[in-house]
């Protein structure tokens, strides 16, 4: 039976997945529910709402508050309805005088040790304790308030986003259970016994100093004002909410933006969110303050040269200035002398418009996107093997996995909400294999069972994946039926011949990867013999000179073991930014129109030409690194960059800065003066995700609505700016709302054919392909066939391991690999302007104790890090999680210059930079690098130019 449920209602206990139905009677009403359902939930599903305090439907039943007591015919006492499962023929009474008295007595005890400050309490009107006191008819507290109590218990205000007020705690354990069951961190506990019981973080530390990751699950779970958002304490309770999609990582969590007027009070994870099911991380839940930060660019600005101060101008003047410059440059240097970059942070509709502007108004294919530097190998590798440039599963699919292989990804930091889901499955007993140079936090999952860490050397992924596949084939673990029916025979035969070569045996690969052969064999057997085995990978796979090869090797491994086309299996790229999948889908790459339709495909091109009314170029355009090279040679003169900070995020910073400095016109559309904007001639204010309508597509191909909750600070949503620029260039664009842009996308993109805002409103979200073949979308792909070749059969790819040319030697003996941290996001432009700085206010270099000792390095020392590309200076942290010979840092702070030292080595197929392997030397130093000194000077100068623009505009006013 299909249970219709209201996402805004708490049913007390989780749903049962049983298909067997049970009929019982509650308060004389006959009710049929799945076996295993609690009495509390069964009642709630039929709007019989039993009082509760310690129960919540995202947590397992606990039965501690006893306020949900009921009477059951033929049974003794008053069992808790939350912990009592339904039984066939059961007759339950939820309300009578005895139960009412019992509940009142329980509430009386709670309230006798609770501050009676409801009118001034931040939870006033949003407090379950208050609600339950009303529900049970509590009218007096006979015990008085003079005895021992906790009313003077101190507050913990260490966390920048929420306060723990122990005086209001009823010790219901919901926060502790949320931390365990929902988040999987186990940072909280109930310390002490009886009257002394209290919630404690870590080893009775402050929240900030404990292992707490500030995901907000405890705050969400708290039924009182004990754990409360500081924004609510400061501003009061919100008065309306709008459901939208988070603009941080590729998980794409749904949130209710809870508002007072146009002020955002808090972001509450939406229970009905198909990607997050009511969970969140510290970024999405709390780090939204950047949207109203004083650094926001609030007016358009122009200047003739990057050595001049900015001049604040009207939108009309800025757009006119930009269009005139672009036209002049094209007139002088040719059609291909300009181009642009779309943003993986902007909406699908905005990204679609920017690439359309470039192809139709600029008249060339010089469009690229930040996916170039992260997941372009995914696009290439999965298209070659599986026929579609996307992951194959839903996030929820991991709950059906028996073995989870994680390669080059760190989900608990970079995709935290999915990381929590994965941890839940691991606690349930799935085995884990991690192939990563570092010992990532997933390996420290509390209650983790069978796990294997393959600590391979950076740059050896292909060798490792080949070795795993070699074991699968040579030890007879292939899924022959799957291969015969679902994979193309010739390609398979060729691959098989390649992979059984003895050089791929773990014993022969050991010297390359540094991982013991037996460990690799054990991992391969574990993966191959699991009923359902899944692969999750991230930038630790793609950002290599062989990134595309590893992606294809991963697809080979899944195909060879038949782990494709059903729940619990598949190949799952964990996308970095919120809309990386969408920006790729929308035709941001220079060789592909929206929907991955190649520009040389005359039929596809003709459809676009008809709708767009222009002739399109049939040759691929410039990729981002080609744009830089062409700029330095003088052939590429102007660039339109929307929501992307190439000066910070792209490798070999000096090269990028030189290229940007060489441009005659750089138009940057962003919410802040980012590093790229310091080289710009036109600065157009961007709008945050809170200020616009549109859609994002997450890593599971889920198209989710982004809804405007406040007006754009500079008056325009990003898509409107692109429309105006296009019109000023003489190519008319006429859209009244992003829904019209989506209608055009659906018209031209076969995999989006059935997508519309009406459909999204109706279904909440849709996973592409969503068309006549899959009218409701496609949660799991490739269930019957692959969209490749005439027969729809997957193609095995021969995956030769070609070592990177970036090798350690006597001069550069260590290998640097870069990555992310939980509290910061990408280049940090957003999170650095929030209180997330409390966790990570500088990038640090992690180094193994052995390497540190050899160099006399202690934690906190300043280190000069020198590569073949450049030098920068960071502070050291001696870390056991590193392996000897490998150092690690993040790139969230521009002054760190992490990309000053990364090289211009790149993936052979896509030019995705090799961020993950840079040979370096480190030594103790006492001052910043030359680049850092120059950076600081330029930073101050450019900010002065910005302040000058604002003050001169004020003077005019």
């Amino acid at each position, binding site marked *: 039976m299909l249970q219709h449920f209201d996402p805004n209602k708490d049913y007390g206990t989780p749903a049962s997945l049983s298909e067997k139905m049970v009929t019982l009677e509650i308060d004389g009403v006959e009710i049929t529910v799945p076996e295993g359902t609690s009495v509390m939930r069964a009642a709630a599903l039929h709007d019989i709402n039993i009082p509760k305090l310690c129960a919540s439907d995202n947590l397992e039943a606990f039965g501690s508050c006893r306020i949900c007591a009921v009477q059951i015919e033929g049974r003794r006492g008053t069992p808790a309805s939350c912990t009592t499962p339904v039984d066939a023929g059961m007759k339950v009474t939820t309300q009578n005088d005895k139960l009412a008295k019992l509940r009142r007595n329980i509430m009386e005890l709670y309230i006798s040790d609770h501050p009676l400050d409801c009118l001034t309490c931040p939870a006033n009107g949003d407090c379950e304790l208050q609600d339950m006191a009303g529900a049970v008819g509590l009218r007096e507290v006979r015990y008085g308030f003079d005895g021992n109590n906790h009313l003077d218990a101190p507050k913990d205000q260490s966390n920048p986003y929420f306060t723990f007020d122990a005086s209001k705690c009823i010790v219901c354990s919901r926060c502790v259970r949320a931390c365990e069951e929902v988040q999987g961190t186990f940072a909280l506990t109930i310390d002490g016994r009886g009257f002394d019981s209290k919630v404690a973080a870590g080893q009775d530390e402050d929240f900030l100093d404990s292992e707490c990751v500030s995901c907000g699950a405890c705050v969400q779970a708290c039924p009182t004002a004990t754990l409360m958002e500081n924004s609510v304490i400061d501003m009061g309770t919100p008065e309306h909410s709008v459901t939208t999609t988070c603009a941080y990582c590729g998980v794409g969590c749904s949130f209710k933006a809870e508002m007072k007027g146009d002020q955002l009070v808090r972001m509450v994870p939406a229970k009905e969110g198909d990607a997050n099911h009511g969970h969140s991380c510290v970024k999405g839940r709390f780090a939204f303050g950047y949207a109203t930060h004083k650094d926001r660019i609030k007016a358009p600005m122009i200047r003739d040269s990057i050595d001049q101060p900015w001049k604040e101008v009207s939108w009309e003047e800025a757009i006119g200035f930009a269009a005139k410059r672009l036209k002049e440059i094209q007139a002088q240097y040719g059609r*291909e002398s300009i181009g642009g970059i779309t943003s993986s942070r902007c909406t699908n509709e905005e990204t679609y418009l920017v690439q359309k502007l470039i192809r139709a108004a600029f008249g060339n*294919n*010089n469009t690229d996107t930040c996916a170039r530097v992260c997941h372009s190998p995914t696009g290439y590798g999965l298209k070659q093997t599986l026929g579609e440039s996307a992951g194959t599963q839903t996030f929820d699919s991991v709950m059906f996995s028996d073995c989870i292989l994680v390669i080059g990804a760190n989900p608990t930091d970079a995709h935290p909400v999915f990381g929590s889901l994965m941890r839940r499955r691991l606690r349930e007993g799935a085995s884990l294999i991690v192939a990563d140079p570092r010992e990532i936090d997933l390996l420290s999952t509390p209650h983790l069972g069978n796990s294997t860490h393959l600590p391979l050397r950076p740059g050896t992924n292909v060798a490792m994946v080949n070795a795993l596949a070699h074991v699968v084939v040579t030890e007879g673990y292939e899924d022959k039926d799957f291969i015969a029916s679902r994979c193309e025979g010739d390609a398979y035969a*060729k691959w098989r011949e*390649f992979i059984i070569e003895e050089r791929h045996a773990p014993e022969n690969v050991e010297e390359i990867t540094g991982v013991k052969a037996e460990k690799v064999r054990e991992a391969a057997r574990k993966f191959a013999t699991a009923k359902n085995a899944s692969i999750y990978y991230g930038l630790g796979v793609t950002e290599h*000179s*062989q990134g*595309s*090869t590893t992606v294809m090797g991963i697809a080979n491994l899944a195909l060879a073991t038949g782990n494709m086309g059903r729940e619990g299996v598949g190949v799952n790229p964990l996308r970095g930014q919120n809309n990386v999948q969408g920006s790729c889908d929308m035709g941001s790459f*220079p*060789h592909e129109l929206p929907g991955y339709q*190649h520009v*040389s495909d005359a039929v596809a091109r003709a459809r676009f030409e008809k709708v767009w009314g222009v002739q399109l170029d049939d*040759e*691929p*355009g*410039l*990729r981002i690194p*080609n744009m830089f*090279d*062409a700029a*330095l*040679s003088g*052939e590429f003169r102007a660039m339109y960059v929307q929501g992307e900070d190439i000066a910070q995020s792209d490798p070999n910073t000096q090269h990028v800065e030189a290229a940007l400095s060489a441009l005659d016109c750089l138009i940057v559309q962003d919410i802040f003066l980012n590093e790229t904007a310091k080289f710009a001639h036109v600065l157009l204010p961007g709008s945050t995700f809170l200020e616009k309508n549109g859609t994002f597509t997450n890593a599971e191909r889920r198209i989710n609505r982004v809804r405007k909750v406040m007006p754009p600070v500079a008056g325009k949503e990003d898509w409107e700016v692109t429309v105006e620029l296009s019109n000023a260039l003489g190519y008319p664009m006429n859209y009244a709302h992003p829904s019209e842009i989506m209608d055009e996308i659906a018209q031209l993109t076969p995999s989006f054919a059935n997508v519309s805002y009406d459909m999204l409103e109706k279904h909440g979200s849709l996973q592409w392909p969503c068309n006549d073949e899959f009218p409701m979308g496609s949660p799991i792909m490739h269930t019957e066939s692959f969209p490749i070749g005439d027969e729809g059969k997957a193609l095995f790819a*021969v995956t*030769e391991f*070609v070592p990177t*040319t*970036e090798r350690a030697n006597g001069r550069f003996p260590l290998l640097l690999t870069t990555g992310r941290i939980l509290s910061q996001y990408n280049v940090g432009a957003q999170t650095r302007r929030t209180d997330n700085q409390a966790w990570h206010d500088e990038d640090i270099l992690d180094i193994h104790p052995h390497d540190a000792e050899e160099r006399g390095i202690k934690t906190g020392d300043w280190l000069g890090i020198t590569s*073949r*590309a450049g030098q920068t200076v960071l502070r050291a942290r001696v870390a056991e999680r590193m392996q000897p010979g490998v150092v690690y840092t993040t790139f969230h702070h521009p002054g760190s210059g992490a990309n000053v030292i990364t*090289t*211009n*080595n790149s993936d*052979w*197929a*896509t*030019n995705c930079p090799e961020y993950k392997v840079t040979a370096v030397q480190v030594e103790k130093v006492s001052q910043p690098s030359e680049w850092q000194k120059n950076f600081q000077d330029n930073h101050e100068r450019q900010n002065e130019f910005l302040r000058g623009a604002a003050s001169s505009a004020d003077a005019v006013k």
Partner: protein
Amino acid sequence: MFHTEEESIVTMINHIAQNNVSAGSESEVADIVENHITKFWSRRMKKILAAQLASGTAEFEPAAKLAAEQLSAKVNVSA
């Protein structure tokens, strides 16, 4: 690391050839390389490649050189 754009173009085509070295004979690898460049490289990159081939000084992998020659021949025919 490479330094000039010309060097990088030659490095890239060699890299494509190396990564497909097990795909078959030199001619089969060259076909893959040619197809890849046709499909993914911009007009400008192809032009630089042609110039490097014509210069006779660039150090190409055998399959990469064959691919570059095939590409140049096609351009000449269509021209």
